[in-house]
């Protein structure tokens, strides 16, 4: 049997759960999980979830950014960040997931999908170190 790719399964899940009320949605997801179990494809769940997230965001024009900072961001900064993300990725909505990381010293590190913008002082010091020893 040809292996069904996790991307394909994620597409199916996305299509079949589109515009359902909550009860129907629960039922569909359960059936999907049972199908995966019967086909012994539960191992692929992480990839399916990852792909589903990507496809859903793409379909609904959402971008999700993980942001690390040394301290909590204020609302002003956040909305500013949201606006620039919307412009850069040409999407309607931008979500921010906040994380705290004391090691950054100052500045932000932003991750969108597999792209990373590292504007932290820690990264700048690191590049300085590289340039001086290299």
């Amino acid at each position, binding site marked *: 049997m040809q292996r069904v790719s996790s991307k394909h399964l994620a597409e199916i899940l996305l299509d079949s759960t589109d515009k359902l009320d909550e009860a129907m949605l629960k039922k569909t997801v359960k059936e999907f999980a049972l199908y995966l179990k019967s086909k012994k494809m539960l191992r692929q769940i992480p990839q399916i979830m990852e792909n589903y997230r990507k496809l859903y965001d793409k379909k609904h024009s959402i971008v999700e950014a993980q942001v690390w900072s040394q301290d909590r961001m204020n609302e002003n900064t956040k909305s500013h960040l949201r606006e620039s993300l919307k412009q850069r990725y040409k999407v309607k909505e931008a979500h921010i997931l906040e994380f705290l990381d004391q090691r950054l010293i100052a500045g932000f590190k932003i991750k969108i999908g*597999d792209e990373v913008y590292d504007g932290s002082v820690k990264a700048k010091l690191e*590049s300085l170190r590289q340039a001086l020893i290299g």
Partner: protein
Amino acid sequence: MNTRNLVIENLKKEIANFKKTSSVQKVGVVTEVFDGIVRVSGLSDIKSSEMVTFPNGVTGVALNLEEDFVGIIVLGEYNNIKEGDEVKATGKILEVGVGEALIGRVVNALALPIDGAGAIKSSAMYPVERVASGVITRQGVDQPVQTGIKAIDALVPIGRGQRELIIGDRQTGKTAIAIDAILNQKGQNMKCVYVAIGQKDSKLRKIETRLREGGAMEYTTIVSAGASDPSALAYIAPYTGVAIAEYFMDKGEDVLIIYDDLSKHAVAYREISLLLRRPPGREAYPGDVFYLHSRLLERACRKNKDYGGGSITALPIIETQAGDISAYIPTNVISITDGQIFLETDLFYKGIRPAINVGFSVSRVGGTCQIKAMKKVAGTLKLDLAQFRELEAFSQFGSDLDEATKATIERGRRAVELLKQPQYSPVVVEHQVVALYALVKGYLDDIAVTKISEFETGLIEYAENNAKTFMKQVREKRIWEDDGEAEIKTAIADFKKMFV
């Protein structure tokens, strides 16, 4: 201004000059680590054979680009890499530092020093994988590589830009031939690169010492991926070696590169391929194992004058199992190269060393790259030996042989004796010509077989002093003239009287 302020000023300037790198980077996350292979999710825009870096500074190369993940081989220590580590793409195809500074050094598969003699300041970065030079840039092979081994220079001559395979069982002297060839390149305008793949470090050390003693490290670089290094390094070592060689070729120089040996290289690649779950084929080698070696050996070439006129001569080595040259890897490499030097265990134990089987060894470029004098003496020698082999097998059954047959056999015995040569003692081409001239003109027919080598040494010494015109003509014009020939004839006759 005092030194203190000068240092501070310069440091300030340096720091002000830093390029503010736009710090957008592609990253992935390690999901699986096993046996030097790392699976990474993310890294969506990565190129094939792009370099990546791990948190501990180790480099990796992306080999398998699949739908949900990227398969990466780790070039170095992989025990510290764990699940969840961030992997950064560099955007660069794997490249190594090359340049004059590598000469005389021992480096690993990433061209980094392992001889403890300090950092290497490379002149350029060269990609490890590069498409071989095209047809337009090439020309035919017509310059000889003098290996200093009589049997090779006379019977299977190698030209600059040729690819000649050295094949044989274990312990038949394959490496010895390669090392002798390197030793003989002194003063021949040749750079050498010796690539050791999966060799024991003790053997490598021995080779390095030997080359250093012979003064050969002045023009040689050793690239080593040892037996204890991960197979990923063994896999890229020959490509690194040829990248180092290409730097010199691009500058118009001639390079001799030795791959010791490609059977271990194929095994390393098989290991990587199987771990990356690529489908196995014959002898469990992956489907592209032919391409693995053909793209490597195709990078050996002779460039024409418009493109600098440099060359890379490749001497790949293949180890066979119990003389089986029809196994998968040997047949592949035989068909890729322009000829092979076939070494045999039987000959080795009979005392015929180098143990070259003259019948099975060929050079498909051949005579065009021999000097004229050598061509003249070696032409008849090949025929003599072929007849000798046929008659020798036949004569074992009977004792009554006619005079002509006996003469051929006697001549053949002397030829075999003359082609014997101890290790690490290359013979320059004009001396080879003198010895072979004496043989093919029949001067050795009445010398006892056991005395041949003694006679040869004596004759060469005598000729150096008493046949100077002949020697000069061969050395400079590459062929003797009538006066030179007359001189060598009298010299040989005179020496024979003294010798007997």
